[in-house]
């Protein structure tokens, strides 16, 4: 690796996960010089996506963020074994042949169409690097069957799940939530959302839809939180598709890279396969001396992903504990009926409950239109907060609900644990900011809040967090009169017309 890097930076960011990339981009946008490094040879850290082969390698070699990895092939190894079957189906060989067509997320997420992430992408103009697919269905499990929850007005109109009066009830309930203001409904303050729902005289079927899919509540969720979640769901409806969610094309691993790209456009320097080896305070200045790959760099500030801390510092941050249990399945047939998977299927989101609502998991089913797998295959991502070191045991309660009745043709299954440290609130050991590991959430709200917090801590609240990046035509080249109208910026046909006129004159 060529090492003609500059040796002084305003900020060194270690780890290219979502949160770190966000901070790097924000700092670079306000004119800070940024060095962004990652010990891994890929972008994204615990937020990354992998092709099938690389994913298997990762599971075989545990690292700081990922452990307890395992995978099993369920289908036949190769075609020879499979000769008696008439239809040529998928084998281990054919899957591996298409390895590069997979984009397997460690931390799959969806985004609310009007949520924090989408707002941030639009506000910062990073959206031009990103591409999304609207989630096709938000589902609930009803008698072991996947049922699409009617979200939009046309869904409610077309659904056969509800009677005419139920349709009215659901629409009325949702409209009431949408119009809800803090000062209304004082009587439900301090009570649960379930109590509020029951007071609205809705039927059981509607109650299930609202609790499981729309408000995403359990029996203990407070009225205020339930209302807030319902409104988040409703506020994101009707923006991009039939459901309120978006899924990043080619996987969630694309998103950190969008932020990195913006950082690089504004002068950020990138270096992969480079770890943070040590860090000390410089004498007689506030600067930090960062040693990496045998070199010492000077930085005013350092932000680091917890898993990439040097061993000497990591002990200050407590031990690594299982944080999220993940399951990943590749199947040759989808979950849910044909109606749900029309035209080859898209993206389906399903929130699962177990132990009477005490535990929950999130299922994302991806078809090839999401850009994450070859045509004819489906990926199921299962995510739940970890309760043990055994991810498959953690998820057993959910896989049982999903796969027993529906029995999709699973070809491959993998399990792993994502870890996190218990970070002490006041860590004065080093003047270094640590980001939080990915939490269990649907969207990126917590990660963005974390990035914004750290940014504010570094640069104060007066600095804007990711202001809009100008489009190329808005940028004034040095020495140019900013109010001059150059010919090449005119619309083409007008230019041609004017040229013709000049010739005629």
């Amino acid at each position: 690796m060529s090492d003609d890097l500059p040796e002084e930076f305003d900020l060194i960011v270690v780890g290219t996960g979502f949160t770190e990339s966000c901070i790097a981009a924000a700092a670079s946008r306000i004119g800070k010089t940024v060095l962004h490094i990652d010990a891994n040879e890929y972008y994204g850290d615990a937020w990354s996506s992998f092709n099938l082969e690389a994913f298997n390698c990762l599971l075989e070699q545990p690292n700081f963020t990922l452990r307890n990895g395992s995978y099993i092939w369920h289908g036949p190894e190769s075609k020879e074994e499979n000769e008696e079957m008439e239809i040529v189906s998928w084998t281990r060989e054919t899957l591996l042949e298409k390895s590069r067509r997979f984009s397997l997320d460690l931390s799959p997420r969806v985004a609310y169409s009007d949520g924090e992430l989408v707002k941030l992408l639009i506000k910062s103009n990073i959206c031009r690097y990103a591409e999304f697919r609207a989630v096709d269905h938000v589902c609930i499990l009803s008698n072991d069957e996947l049922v699409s929850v009617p979200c939009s007005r046309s869904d409610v109109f077309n659904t056969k799940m509800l009677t005419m009066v139920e349709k009215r009830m659901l629409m009325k309930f949702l409209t009431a939530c949408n119009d809800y203001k803090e000062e209304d409904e004082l009587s439900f303050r301090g009570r649960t959302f379930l109590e509020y729902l029951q007071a609205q005289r809705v039927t059981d079927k509607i109650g299930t839809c609202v609790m499981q899919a729309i408000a995403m509540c359990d029996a203990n969720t407070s009225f205020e939180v339930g209302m807030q979640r319902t409104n988040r769901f409703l506020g994101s409806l009707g923006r991009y598709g039939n459901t309120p969610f978006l899924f990043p094309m080619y996987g969630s691993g694309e998103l950190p890279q969008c932020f990195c790209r913006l950082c690089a456009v504004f002068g950020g320097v990138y270096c992969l396969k480079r770890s943070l080896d040590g860090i000390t305070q410089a004498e007689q200045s506030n600067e930090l001396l960062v040693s990496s790959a045998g070199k010492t760099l000077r930085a005013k500030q350092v932000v680091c992903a917890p898993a990439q801390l040097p061993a000497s510092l990591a002990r200050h941050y407590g031990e690594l504990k299982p944080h999220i249990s993940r399951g990943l399945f590749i199947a040759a047939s989808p979950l849910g009926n044909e109606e749900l998977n029309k035209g080859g299927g898209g993206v389906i989101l399903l929130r699962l409950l177990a132990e009477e609502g005490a535990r929950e998991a999130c299922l994302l089913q991806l078809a090839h239109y999401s850009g994450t797998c070859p045509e004819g295959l489906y990926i199921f991502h299962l995510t739940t907060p970890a309760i043990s070191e055994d991810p498959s045991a953690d998820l057993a309660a959910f896989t049982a609900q999903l796969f027993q009745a529906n029995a999709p043709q699973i070809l491959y299954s993998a399990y792993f644990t994502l870890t996190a440290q218990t970070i002490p609130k006041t860590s004065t050991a080093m003047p270094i900011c640590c980001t939080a590991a990915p939490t269990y959430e649907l969207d990126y709200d917590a990660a963005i809040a974390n990035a914004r917090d750290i940014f504010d801590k570094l640069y104060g609240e007066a600095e804007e967090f990711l202001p809009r990046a100008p489009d190329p035509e808005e940028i004034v080249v040095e020495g140019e009169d900013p109010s001059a109208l150059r010919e090449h910026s005119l619309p083409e046909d007008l230019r041609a017309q004017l040229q013709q006129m000049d010739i005629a004159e």
Partner: protein
Amino acid sequence: MHGRVKVRTTEEERERKKKEQVLKMRAYRAAMTRIQIKRSSGELDDELLNLTVQILLRNPDVSTLWNIRRECVLAKTAQLQQAMQAQEKAPAPKASEQTEKEEEEKEQEQAKEEGDGDKKSATYSEQLQTVYATELDLTEQCLMVNPKSYNSWHHRCWTLEQNPEANWQRELQLCNKYLKFDERNFHTWDYRRYVSAKAAVPAEQELDFCTEKIKVNFSNYSSWHHRSLLLPKLYPNELKERPMSEQKLKQELEMVLTAAFTDPNDSSAWFYQRWLLGGGVQREESAEIVAFRCWPHKAELALKTSCPEMVQLKIHLISAQNSLELDNWLPMDANKTQWECGSIDLHANSNYILESDGQRLPLSVHPKDESLYCFVPPHSISTSCSKELLAELQTQLKSCMDLLDYEPDSKWTLLTSALLMRAIDVDKYHEQSLAHLIKLEQVDALRQGYYQDLAQRWNMEIALAKWPETKHFPLVFEMPGKMKRTPYVQYLIVADAIIECD
């Protein structure tokens, strides 16, 4: 600050825009002047066509320019057609006495010429198609700028009409595409009806398309309207008492109520439902006689709806002995629903029948002065409908009442349930439907006058329907309450006295 990108300020951006505007204006003026000059000197050529393109692409609604384009296209096509005809008529050169060798050569040449000729005529018709294609492309581009540009749609129709080889299937695809972008653009729906008629698209297929669009977004007057045109053709009602066959009507009622329940504040579904519930929409709109009275010196006639000209209406008084045509009718009111005519040669003690356009009405003798009269109330109290449809109407009414339980102030539900009641049994539900109107006056005060008017109509309808059974019929009619402007007033020509209540 160092390292920060310099971006134009809004002030600088405004200045740039201004400069651009000036240039645009200059280009526009120059092009317009040039167009006027060329047109007045009759130069309807390609240059003129190109000049209009530049302006139309920015503003597709300059009618003048489209007119000029049409002149150019007509000039161009006329030229091409002339050239084609000239070629067809061109006589083959006659063979004269020549040596064999020369003749052979000549033949070869001729063959060559003929080949050229074929090629040329092919290029002529190809050129013709290119002219039309250019126009279609331009309208398509203009519709991208403004999808509701009347001029562009019109020009597209005009171009297709000019071309005997127009590709209507392609136009249908275009409609599909545009309705995907905006399923509510009534221009596109209108154009679709025009195109599907030309392309002879089966009505079933159109109905399926229409259903698909309603599924996407039912808040769409255009697609409901499209349905209302297709259904009576596809599922005709034998008795013409309902807009379509009862079986289909049942399905439609179910679908539209689902839409209405999903969003009761969306008026489009309710309007469609009212059309579905309206009876006899299919009846030919010919004048219908509702009351008649005649004395030896004159006759009075009342029609259901106003009739501007009585000439077409042949009205006969028929008895066993003779048939009498009544003519020279004069209007008695401004609405032209009441007419009178002069003396009639009536034979006493004969049974007369009034006949007109398929209507045959037996006349009775008036107890007062032995004049002859007949009377047909506006709506019969018991509407005839099949058991299945009645069951559907009752289910719908039940759903509406359930909904009112839940939302007692829902305007459209109140009105629709009242209409449903009247469709099921006017007499039984009369009071209850009026109660709904009174409630509506409160919850929808802006349309108070409308509801009052509707209540008066309904009161009058039932009073007229029940009148023949009262003992004072046809001498005295008792008005049902106070009326500002009496509806159905023409029905009362058979009455001698009208009593107003307080």
